């Protein structure tokens, strides 16, 4: 029976369809559904800002209200992407300023924002509500002044882990007295003091504030008065959590302040912890679901006392000061734990840390039945431990192990860690994200290619023996979307043999491997719809023989063609560059003839 739905009814129906995946599906149903859907889609996620042009996005989805853009490759977090590489958001803002004046939300990750971009946002979008910059850079507090002055409906300002040129703490004063709509403020990345009285006044007049993440420059003795302005907080990032000397009256004000925050569920901050102030948290520990102590330099015994009172933790981020004994306490107390991240306190130190070993991770795996997501930095690991973890916790979906010293073998058997990671991919059938480390041969990639069928993202460093390793992954991992590789002996063969696979992935990063310039050119020619970008700071790769390996290679699929904003150390391989090469060669030949 044909139920021809009027357009209005379909629009109303589509307004309840939220996920991009479902929206993509319904737009394929028919031409009229496609038109109705695209004209009503409000939220767009662009996983690679160079995969599509701003014009295409805006033309396709004219009623856009919320855009998420990701820029630099993930390895930028480890300083592997040189400054100036790209990821500029300005062209996107410029295009949207003209055509999408009702834009409300911009969320960016690893993109370069400028003060000009911020000024343009501030003056172009009258109903602007959400600004989230995760690991971004390129702007200063001057840009924030523009946002504060003009965005009357701003709900969220989140600068998580961004690098901001902190020129003045007075930008907060630019929020007018009439501004009351703040729901979430994260300024934890700022280096300097913000104007505290302006902050306090702001907090006091924003009754819907739920998230407040301060920076380390906010002194602890100011925290109680700030909190008294917003006792309804759900998420708090403290400033520095110590004073030069312990003051009992600071402690008692803290206790009063925290006790007043009846909705508080998530804590972070804790730069410089003075343990005598930790008891102020005890009244709220039982409600905590998320605790981020990854900046906190505190001893294991103090962490244990705190965590012992947090039975409802779902997420724990902590430094390796927690030690195995601390993780045993987590395993005993935090039965609902879903995510554990243990960061290195001193990554450059090469000495073995006997206090934080594989045993800590095994304890948590054994004790926490809901554990799904692990990021673990350590200095030793064994196949036995990995195998145990895999068998006890087959529900892991994210497993990132970072053994700090490259090529570290199983410390018990001195064997590679192939079988340990093999067990992980074999047992954890829903594994979506995996980071490898330690001594690994091609064998581990064979296991991964065979078993890791749901794997979407793989990070590899200092692993493998030959091209076979890369070949196993590219030919076996059906759902692979992102692959990032550094310092592995992978070369031309596997890459060229699996060229078609690259069109099924978002991106491939390879640095300090053995891929030759000639192979890059060939790949660029063979796969015109991929952007094959060679990054080489030592000079133009065509000034060296084709057989020379390139420094870095970033390959991604795109419907926008080669990008136009490349710096001098990035070259796109493909028809254009080979034509350029032919012209250059002809030019050189001509010069020879003239000699």
């Amino acid at each position, binding site marked *: 029976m044909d139920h021809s739905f009027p357009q209005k009814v379909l629009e109303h129906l589509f307004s*309840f*369809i939220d996920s991009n995946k479902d929206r993509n*599906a319904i737009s394929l149903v028919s031409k009229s559904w496609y038109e109705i859907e695209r004209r009503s889609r409000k939220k767009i996620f662009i996983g690679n800002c160079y995969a599509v042009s701003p014009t295409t996005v805006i033309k396709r989805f004219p009623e856009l209200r919320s855009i998420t853009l990701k820029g630099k490759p993930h390895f930028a977090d480890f300083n592997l992407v040189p400054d100036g590489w790209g990821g500029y958001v300005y062209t996107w803002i410029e295009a949207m300023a003209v055509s999408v004046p009702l834009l409300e939300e911009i969320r960016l990750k690893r993109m370069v924002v400028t003060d000009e971009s911020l000024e343009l946002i501030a003056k172009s979008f009258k109903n602007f509500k959400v600004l989230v910059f995760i690991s971004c850079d390129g702007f200063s507090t001057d840009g924030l002044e523009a946002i504060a002055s003009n965005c009357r409906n701003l709900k969220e300002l989140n600068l998580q882990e961004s690098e901001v040129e902190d020129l003045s703490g007075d930008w907060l004063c630019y929020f007018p007295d009439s501004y009351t709509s703040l729901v979430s403020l994260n300024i934890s990345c700022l280096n300097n003091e913000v104007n505290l009285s302006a902050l306090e006044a702001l907090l006091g007049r924003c009754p819907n504030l739920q998230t407040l993440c301060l920076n380390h420059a906010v002194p602890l003795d100011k925290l109680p008065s700030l909190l008294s302005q917003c006792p309804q907080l759900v998420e708090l990032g403290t400033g520095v959590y110590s004073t030069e000397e312990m003051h009992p009256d600071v402690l008692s004000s803290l206790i009063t302040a925290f006790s007043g925050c009846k909705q508080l569920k998530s804590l972070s901050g804790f730069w410089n912890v003075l343990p005598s102030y930790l008891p102020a948290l005890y009244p709220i520990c039982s409600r905590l679901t998320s605790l981020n102590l990854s900046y906190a330099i505190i001893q294991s015994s103090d962490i244990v006392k705190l965590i012992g009172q947090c039975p409802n933790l779902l997420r724990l981020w902590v430094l390796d000061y927690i030690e195995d004994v601390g993780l045993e306490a987590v395993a005993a107390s935090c039965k609902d734990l879903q995510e554990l991240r243990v960061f290195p306190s001193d990554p450059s130190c090469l000495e073995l840390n006997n206090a934080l070993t594989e045993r800590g991770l095994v304890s948590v795996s054994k004790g926490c039945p809901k554990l799904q997501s692990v990021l673990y930095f350590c200095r030793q690991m064994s196949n036995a431990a990995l195998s145990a973890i895999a068998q006890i916790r087959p529900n892991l979906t994210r497993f990132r192990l970072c053994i700090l010293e490259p090529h570290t073998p199983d410390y018990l058997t001195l064997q590679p860690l192939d079988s340990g990671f093999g067990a992980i991919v074999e047992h954890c059938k829903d594994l979506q994200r995996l980071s490898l480390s330690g001594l690994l041969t091609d064998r581990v990639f064979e296991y991964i290619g065979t078993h890791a069928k749901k794997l979407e993202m793989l990070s590899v460093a200092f692993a493998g023996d030959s091209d076979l390793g890369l070949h196993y992954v590219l030919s076996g991992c059906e759902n692979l979307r992102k692959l990032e590789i550094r310092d592995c002996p992978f070369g031309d063969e596997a890459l060229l043999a699996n060229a078609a696979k690259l069109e099924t992935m978002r991106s491939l990063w390879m640095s300090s491997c053995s891929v030759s310039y000639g192979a890059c050119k060939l790949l660029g020619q063979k796969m015109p719809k991929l952007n094959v970008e060679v990054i080489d700071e030592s000079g133009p790769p065509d000034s060296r023989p084709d057989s020379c390996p390139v420094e870095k290679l970033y390959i991604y699929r795109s*419907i926008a063609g080669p990008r136009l904003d490349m710096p001098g150390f990035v070259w796109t391989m493909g028809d254009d560059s080979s034509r350029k090469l032919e012209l250059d060669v002809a030019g050189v030949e001509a010069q020879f003839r003239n000699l």
Partner: protein
Amino acid sequence: MAEEKSQASSSKMLTLKASDGVLFEVELNIAKEMKTVQAYIDDCEDIETIPIPNVLGKHLAIVIEYIKKTNEEYDAEFEKQWNMDDLQLLLLAANYLNISGLQECLCKAIAKRIENKSPEYVRKVFNIENDHSPEEEAKLRKEYKWAFEGVDKD
């Protein structure tokens, strides 16, 4: 009998006539929830029987029941009794009769049933013919994958 009399004295009754001729006697305040019916009442004060040409008796009965019983609990369970075909016809009815609460309830229910489904499935349950050419469809599928894929979970 006594019940009906007291109803008659407390509020006016109205007759709705479904497309298949089935008649429904409803209280005025129930009928008023259907904005289309309300418009009839506003325009013709003395009207007693209102024709509802687009809605079958079966579905009009369900709509009336919904209006009488709607609350959070009822709404949550409401859609579970009906198959996709009925849900769609009910949505068309709710749209024609202009009952916003019911429209919302039905839209949510239908949206949920097509969550995570393929375009082929959606075409089938809505009985829609695919008029994209194979090339057009391939191009769209590629663009979605390459440019507009789903979110990254962290």
